[in-house]
């Protein structure tokens, strides 16, 4: 049980600055997820915590120790790799026992711990098999089992589910979450899949180009993204963005672009007052647009033409054209529409986001 602290962490390869000034405080027993597109530095950060990459600058604390110069074996961590990394020449039992044997645990203790872990993961019948005789999901369990027998201070997961098929991935995701609740061990989990990040993480760290973009609880990231990147990365389908201009309509501010003229909600006006006459990026999530009814105020409605209809069963995604912009909206399956229909869409005023055109920072 330990907290992990990253202080001004940097990683530079010859020409690439992969991780830039990362500061992060992972609390004891917390499940934290690093998420971002490929090449954002998330895996490198994890590998530095594991001791598999050297640290160019900064400090890593695990528990009360600075571990910068400790070899991986002395950091009291366990890691699960994307390709499982099971030792092909050993049985499942030996795979799981390897770490304990290396640490010279007594045989009885090893046996007990392996049995316990196998029971938790439901792989007791597989202990005598070799890895090549296992399915993808079974290998994944063995890899997790190998990590938990050691009772380490910290679990590190490097995209552990991305080699599984979609159905199994959802199942293992739930199991990992349950496992974490049961073991109460600090866990750091790297993924490029924002759904995994949102569902697993107590807190989520969004990274891009080596920088941390935002750290927060899943719903906080979703509801109040700090910049345009986070807003676009978290959520599926992604948030819609439109280049608009703020204009002064006397009593209120208006957002304008071709085919769209909306009144800025009163509570947002103060923050946007300085942007009069300037371009801003408007962001709206697909579910925050709905077919307009009589109850919606006229100044929050726009006209759109339906381009593509994607029925998903529980909902329908509509790709619609508003002026030059194509945006996506998520509507109830009871809505009957077809391609090229005209539709009036109302904006949910509390859920409109504004981003600076240049810095892409949120203006809220």
């Amino acid at each position, binding site marked *: 049980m330990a907290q992990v602290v990253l202080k001004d962490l940097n990683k530079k390869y010859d020409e690439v600055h992969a991780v830039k000034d990362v500061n992060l405080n992972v609390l004891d027993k917390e499940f934290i997820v690093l998420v971002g597109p490929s090449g954002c530095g998330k895996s490198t950060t994890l590998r530095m915590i594991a001791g598999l990459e050297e640290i160019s600058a900064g400090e890593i604390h695990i528990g009360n120790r600075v571990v910068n110069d400790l070899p991986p*074996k002395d950091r009291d961590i366990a890691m699960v790799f994307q390709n*499982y990394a099971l030792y092909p*020449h050993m049985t499942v039992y030996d795979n799981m026992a390897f*770490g304990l044997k290396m640490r010279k645990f007594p045989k009885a203790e090893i046996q007990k711990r392996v049995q316990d872990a196998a029971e938790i993961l439901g792989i007791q019948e597989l202990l005598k098999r070799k890895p*090549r005789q296992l399915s993808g999901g079974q290998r994944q369990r063995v890899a997790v089992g190998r990590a938990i027998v050691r009772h380490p201070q910290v679990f590190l997961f490097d995209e552990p589910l991305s080699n599984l098929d979609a159905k199994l991935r959802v199942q293992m995701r739930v199991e990992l979450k349950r496992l974490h609740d049961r073991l109460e061990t600090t866990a750091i989990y790297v993924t490029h899949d924002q759904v995994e990040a949102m569902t697993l993480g107590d807190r989520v760290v969004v990274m891009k180009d080596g920088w941390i973009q935002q750290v927060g609880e899943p719903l906080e990231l979703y509801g109040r993204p700090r910049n345009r990147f986070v807003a676009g990365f978290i959520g599926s389908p992604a948030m819609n963005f439109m280049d608009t201009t703020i204009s002064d309509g006397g009593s209120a501010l208006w957002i304008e672009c071709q085919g769209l003229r909306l009144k800025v909600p009163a509570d947002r006006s103060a923050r946007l007052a300085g942007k009069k006459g300037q371009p801003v990026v408007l962001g709206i999530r697909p579910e925050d647009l709905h077919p307009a009814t009589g109850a919606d105020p006229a100044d929050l409605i726009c006209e759109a033409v339906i381009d593509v209809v994607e029925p998903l069963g529980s909902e329908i995604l509509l790709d619609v054209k508003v002026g030059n912009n194509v945006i996506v909206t998520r509507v109830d399956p009871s809505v009957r529409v077809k391609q090229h229909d005209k539709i009036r869409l109302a904006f949910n005023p509390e859920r409109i986001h504004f981003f600076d055109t240049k810095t892409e920072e949120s203006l809220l």
Partner: protein
Amino acid sequence: MVIERRWKKWVFFYVPLTLFLVGMLFPFYWMFITAVRPDAELYRSWRNLHNTPFWTLHPTLDHLKDLLARTMFPRWLWNTFFIATVSTGISLFCGLLAGYALARLKFPMAGTLGTAIFVTYLVPPTLLFIPLANIIRDFQLGDTPWALILTYPTFLIPFCTWLLMGYFKTIPKELEECARVDGATRLGAMAWIIFPIAVPGILSAGIFAFTLSWNEFIYALVFISSPERKTVPVGVVSELIRGDIYFWGQLMTGALLGSVPVALVYSFFVEYYVAGLTGSVKG
């Protein structure tokens, strides 16, 4: 359609395969038939009415007895075996460490070093034996097995290094990283995880190295002069050809016995050896 396909299979598969096999195996057959042919038949004129060059009706073991009793062939066999084993051992050890380092460790000039090692393999022994002879003389190793044991690695180490480097690169590095996180040192991860997985590669490097030293001719010819210290390839040629007299029966028996161990080694390990060359490790 089916008939046409069968016809094509014959022309493009069976016929070339048969020709290839006959071409490959005929020398061995010739070696064998000469080894058991009595002298009277061996030295008979080709135009003789009863000449049967491709078979014999009076097989004999005289040449074998003669070879074992009247030459130092058993001694040569032992010499060859000893020299090939020790030099293969040395080369495998060096090749393992060097191949691992080149495949896994990051250090300056790693790529250049790898290429340099490969280039040394390309230097022909027919040139290299001249400076090597000098060195052998300076260290007073001439006419001892050590002259060969220490010179064979000049071509065996680059060979083993490259073969093993290629093999190590096919082993996912996560296996090793996982072992290090699990509690092994780098050397421990090498010994417990990487080497056991690399057994096919190590075996094929070993077999190749062993065969290369077993068959080596020029260094053995130059550095060894006493008959009792010779290796099979040199001994057979230098002691069984006297001037322009060829003891064909003994020569061929010697060649046959000399190639048997190599053939045995290959046939025992053929599966490993194929896996070693094609690299097939899954994590």
